[in-house]
């Protein structure tokens, strides 16, 4: 382990081969950036950062002691060990070097985002050996609207300690992974301060057309669209010509904005004069579609994507992808539909089939 390994790095420096250093989540963010997709900017605390913290703070010995002789099937014992270990981890101070590095990256991120002490999401990003357990090791450890270096460092510690949940300990014990060899990375990413947000499908989920991109959009946070509380603006974009071929801009009555104190989404009425206004600019829409195409290409299948247009950052660089997962609605529909009849062979046969079907006027 070379001491020259950085303890922090920007997302764009995280690549596929960096899973060991920055974990699965951060490396896939880096991959997306390299595929031409814009995600909210941020940086990663590398596993090297975790290791130095774990090994240099003297935590290692204390933690291993507590784990010694634990019965991995005794959930109660595991949980109480976990509670003690996590409390210990969260109480240990970082080295000045470490704090300085994180503070410097956080400062640069804030400057880049044009916001003093930019609110960020702090998330754990599990590495390869933890991947099978990622669903429990990392899932809960997302802290939103974290603001200021002290808070960031605090939640980084919380992410570190998530390596020692009862279930994570039990899992490693069962699989025979040594507890001192695992490591975790943490992602620190700007919270999208959505002027508009919503979802995008890189397939038309109503008819399975793969040449279409469907975007739903409303003002504010995407929650109003995802929850179905509002009939969003809907756009059908042709992937090949990148034109909006259909659009519907209904009156939208409400939107969500964040309350930074309570760190929750708060429902607001949309002022009358904004209701029938298109919630996203056409330029941003096409930028979004372009990224949708890139994401689909990256994953090799139609995707279901959450996105936002950020209020803080300048136009031209503020359309962000928040989340992408494989599209399931149409794929499921397709799977249950009957297999297509065998294709006719000659041109005349195909033409005959088409003439027989005719054109429906209804």
């Amino acid at each position, binding site marked *: 382990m070379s001491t020259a390994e950085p303890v922090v790095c920007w997302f764009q420096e995280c690549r596929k081969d960096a899973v060991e250093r920055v974990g699965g989540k951060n490396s896939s963010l880096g991959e997306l950036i390299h595929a031409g997709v814009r995600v909210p900017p941020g940086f990663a605390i590398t596993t090297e950062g975790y290791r130095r913290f774990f090994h240099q703070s003297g935590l290692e010995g204390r933690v291993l002691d507590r784990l010694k002789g634990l019965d991995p099937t005794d959930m109660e014992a595991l949980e109480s060990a976990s509670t003690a270990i996590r409390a210990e981890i969260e109480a240990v101070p970082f080295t000045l070097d470490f704090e300085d590095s994180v503070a410097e990256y956080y400062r640069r991120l804030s400057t880049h985002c044009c916001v003093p002490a930019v609110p960020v999401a702090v998330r754990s990003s599990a590495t390869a050996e933890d991947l099978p357990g990622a669903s429990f090791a990392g899932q809960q450890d997302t802290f939103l609207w974290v603001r200021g270096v002290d808070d960031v460092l605090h939640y980084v510690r919380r992410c570190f300690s998530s390596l020692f949940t009862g279930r994570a300990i039990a899992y490693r014990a069962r699989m025979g992974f040594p507890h001192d060899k695992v490591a975790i990375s943490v992602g620190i990413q700007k919270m999208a301060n959505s002027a508009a947000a919503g979802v995008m499908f890189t397939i038309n989920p109503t008819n399975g057309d793969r040449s279409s991109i469907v975007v739903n959009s409303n003002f504010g946070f995407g929650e109003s669209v995802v929850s179905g509380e509002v009939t969003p603006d809907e756009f059908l974009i042709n992937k090949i010509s990148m034109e909006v071929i259909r659009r519907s801009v209904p009156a939208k009555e409400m939107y969500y904005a964040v309350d930074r104190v309570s760190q929750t989404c708060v429902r607001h009425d949309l002022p009358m004069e904004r209701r029938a206004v298109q919630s996203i600019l056409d330029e941003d829409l096409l930028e979004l579609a372009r990224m949708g195409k890139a994401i689909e290409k990256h994953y090799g299948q139609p995707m279901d994507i959450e996105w936002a247009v950020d209020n803080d950052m300048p136009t031209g660089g503020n359309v962000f992808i928040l989340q992408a997962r494989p599209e399931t609605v149409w794929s499921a529909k397709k799977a249950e539909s009957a297999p297509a009849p065998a294709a006719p062979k000659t*041109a005349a046969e195909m033409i005959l089939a088409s*003439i027989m079907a005719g054109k429906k006027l209804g």
Partner: protein
Amino acid sequence: MANQNFPNPHEFKDIPGTEGWQRMYPYQYPFTTDDAKRNQYEKDMFWFYDGLHYPEPIYPFDMIWDEAWFLALSQYNTRIFSVPPVFGVDHRIINGYIYITPVPVTNPKEIEARVGPFLERAGYYYQNWDKLVAKWETKIKATIASLEAIKIEPLPDMEAKNVVDDALGESKGYHLLKAYDELIDLGIRCWQYHFEFLNLGYAAYVTFMDFCQKQFPDIPTQRITQMISGIDVIMYQPDEELKNLARKAVELGVDGAVVSKPTFTAASAELKKTPAGQQWLAAFEKARYPWFWVSTGTGWYHHDKSWNDDLDVPLSSIGIYIDKIRKGQSIERPLEAVRKERDRVTGEYRALITDDAARATFDQMLGTAKTVFPYVENHLFYVEHWFHSVFWNKVREVGAIMKAHGFIADVEDIWYLKRSEIKDALWDLVTAWATNVGPRGPQIWPKEIEFRKTCMKKFREWKPPPALGKAPEVIQEPFTVVLWGITNQSLAAWAKVREAKDIASIKEFTGFAGSPGTVEGKARVCRTVADIRQLEEGEILVAPTTSPSWAPAFVKIKACVTDVGGVMSHAAIVCREYGMPAVVGTGHATSIIKTGMNIRVNGTTGEITIAQ
């Protein structure tokens, strides 16, 4: 669809003053009132106005092409290729406007029985397409050559001496009757050939479209046609000739002389003065045959004159190109760019088809569509332009003889007679000439022609409803679908404009999305090709329809709107090639839009908005 209300075809009363108009047309064309069975059949069918071919009422003589395609299209569907679910397309007329209806095969057993012959017969044509098209070109060229060879000669007081010396045994009177018969026969024959490949070609199109729409339900039609764009066809040749002449004029340094005079007669007098000018005139003369037989209209009406009939038209277009060249602007069709974009679009759609069998079908259908494309375009030049332009002039020669004998007051009056009436009149004329007595015709026809002129005038003021009768749920006739673009949407849009009480109040209407993109600009309504001289750089052309002789307009404008035509119409194809928006088949653009209005043309959705 069933809730779409169209008028009953029998509810139309004669326009006052036109009573008896029916005799201007073949007797089977008017809707029937005295034949219960036929009357019921007419009520049950869906008739739509063929505005694509007939933007204005049809003249009695010009009916020849309607009858010719009535026969040709129908015989190929019904009797030759045995298209399983459709027979022919039936025709009717109201107030000079043609209504047509595709006739379905209703008995499932009969449809089944027609499948085998169709696969065998149509299959033979698809498999041997290029070889058979080459044969077709030979046939059509021979037909045109025969037409050009026809001599319409005046009747002499005394036959020439050689009639006796050569023991000819025939008179000029007989020759006139024979020449007229040949003229008509060649016209009908030409149209027999016209449809030999056309419906199969369109069927291949429709199939490719269907396939694409099934794979990609959201695909805009223009993206499908884009995949078949950029193929070189002779329909563009007349325009290429003009560009060549423009370049040559600049090269020879006679461009000044070419553009200095408004008429060809004056310009040619000027050009004859210098050797370079003479050289250019020689090149001009060479380009005229056959390319200047291109019609300034669709070729369907006798008044659609060809460039050869009015050399001022090509001269003015050459002037537009010379002007562009002088300004250092390109006059090339951006063919390479079109092909590159076509290949990109095709490649991207193809890559989205995940199923191997479906991709193979895509390749095959695209291949077939590309194979049939040149015929679908090129037949127009041979038939509607070259043949028709020569044909109309031959009929005018017949008219000149009839005028000389007092049968009609003006050569252009001949169009008010049915072709069978002309035949009858020529018999009257020839027998009277042979006998040296007065013919009956001069007392009959001029009076009848006056009545018919009144009818035509009133017909022009009448707006034909877009459709009549009962709309079916499915249309299987390939033509109906591709050419007229008959869809639920288009019918509803037509009906909407028709229902608007005050045409000036219409601020928004729609047509077919012919070529994508949106622009806003000043409209220029050009009713005929002669009007394109008035076009200013960057205006939006609004026209009844366009044809290849309108080509020079497209280097000046930034969008195009037409009354008539589908996504495969000339305006749509050319605009796609130039990459500018087009909305076609709006039905009424030239009546709604006035020159100088600011309009917004959305060629992606087919919407037109009048800004002011």
